[in-house]
């Protein structure tokens, strides 16, 4: 534990430095508060609205987690499928790449038509944001699994299921976690964007309305919380990764 703290000391220091710079520069250069508010103002705003913010936080977190969960499940399935069939790989992979090249906001009426104004349109956007990194990295993990181990297992008459469970999956886990970590960071942005496409609640809606009202402090309190949420999700996944892949930690020391 104390080791974790000393390891993160540099970044904590750096963040504090950043915060001081922010406050100082905003004060010195008289930047309009609706463009960059003072950090102190942002914290005051958080303090004043914390009940409301907590509610919106919950909504956005729910959307992010739901979308992330769906992406993890389907992304893994897609990666497995791509790994097991080169036909699937050559068909799905380009489609997934394609899905990432489409500027999604252009399609917002379609999203709303299909998924309505309920939580599902936001979840759909989160899935669109998080599916790709999970599939790509997991598929990469599968692809780089040591073929010699696979061959050895085949000579042992291993069934496909066991090949997967005992060879491919452990080999792909590092990539899988890299993918989920990236996806965790993206999920919150996805949820925010989803809320921008139309929503009654969530931090995305909160920041959008605040921005329309020129309330810089509230915009930034939303942004700060969204960013914190993304980072916490990232760290949570990293924690799970550390536990799961403990053998790797040893390998590096």
């Amino acid at each position, binding site marked *: 534990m104390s080791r974790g703290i000393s390891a993160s000391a540099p970044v904590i220091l750096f963040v504090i430095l950043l915060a001081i710079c922010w406050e100082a520069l905003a004060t010195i250069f008289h930047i309009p508060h609706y463009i960059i508010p003072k950090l102190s103002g942002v914290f005051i705003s958080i303090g004043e609205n914390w009940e409301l913010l907590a509610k919106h936080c919950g909504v956005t977190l729910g959307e992010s987690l739901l979308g992330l969960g769906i992406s993890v499940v389907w992304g893994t399935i897609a990666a497995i499928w791509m790994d097991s069939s080169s036909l699937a790989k050559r068909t799905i992979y380009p489609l997934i790449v394609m899905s990432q090249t489409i500027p999604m906001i252009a399609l917002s009426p379609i999203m709303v038509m299909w998924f309505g104004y309920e939580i599902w349109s936001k979840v759909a956007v989160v899935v669109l944001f998080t599916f790709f990194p999970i599939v790509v990295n997991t598929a990469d993990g599968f692809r780089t699994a040591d073929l010699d181990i696979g061959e050895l297992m085949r000579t042992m*008459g291993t069934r496909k299921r066991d090949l997967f469970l005992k060879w491919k999956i452990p080999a792909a886990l590092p990539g899988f976690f890299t993918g989920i970590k990236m996806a965790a960071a993206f999920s919150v942005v996805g949820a925010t964007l989803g809320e921008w496409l139309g929503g009654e609640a969530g931090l995305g809606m909160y920041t959008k309305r605040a921005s329309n009202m020129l309330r810089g402090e509230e915009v930034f309190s939303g942004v700060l919380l969204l960013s914190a949420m993304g980072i916490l999700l990232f760290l949570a996944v990293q924690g799970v990764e550390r536990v799961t892949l403990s053998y790797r930690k040893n390998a590096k020391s």
Partner: protein
Amino acid sequence: MNGVVTKQQTPALSVRGLTYSFPGERPLFDDLSFDIQEGEFVSLLAASGMGKTTLFRLLAGLIDSPKGEIVASGRQISLTEAASKGAQIGYMPQKDCLMPWRTVLDNAALGLELNGTSKRVARMRVMEQLPLVGLEGTEHKYPHELSGGMRQRVSFLRSLLGGADVLLLDEPFSALDAMTRINMQEWLLQVWEQHRKTIVFVTHDVDEALLLSDRVLVAAISPVTVLEEIIVPIPRPRKYETVMDAEFIGLKRQVLSLISRTQHRSGLEGESL
């Protein structure tokens, strides 16, 4: 027991007209045929790079050969079948191929696990055997914490515990010191005799080949069209002093003369260093 007895049984492995080359390379095998009888202990000797490992991979169904036929226990071996055919063949690869995410215990237990043995029982069986390969106390280490010889022993243990009747061992003891090697040889023979396994054994150590095997097969000329056969009629149990016997030395000379025909830039035995 000796080679003559086992000759009368059906072949455990039968290779007919095998021809193989890697894409764009010179052929390694050309119309090669040979049999391994059930319960036989056969050593394979050939210079480095002549195709021993490739032959094993063909026998294990890991490469499909477009020409020729390989039959194991009466069943044709092919790439597509390999995965489904059950652990007919226990292959110990030249590289150790340990899983970096498994401990020694779990690496060695892999074969058992895949056979359907419960994890608990598999681990117990491995724990029993670990002292026999001199790895007691290392059960919770990961492969990167082992020495080269220790990794090889884990890999060896894994193959032996796999339960297959035909074992293909690719230089299983190359990284072991003389003493440890003797222990491994002993134990291997014990397993072989008790469980009536068929063993094909690749080694570069002529003494080892002669001491362990019923027959020694030598590939001298590349591409390999024929495996020269030397039957080792020395009765079992054999002793290490045997290497000093005239009969043994005669056999050894025979093997070495076969090997030295290898089309290879070769020094002759007895040449000055």
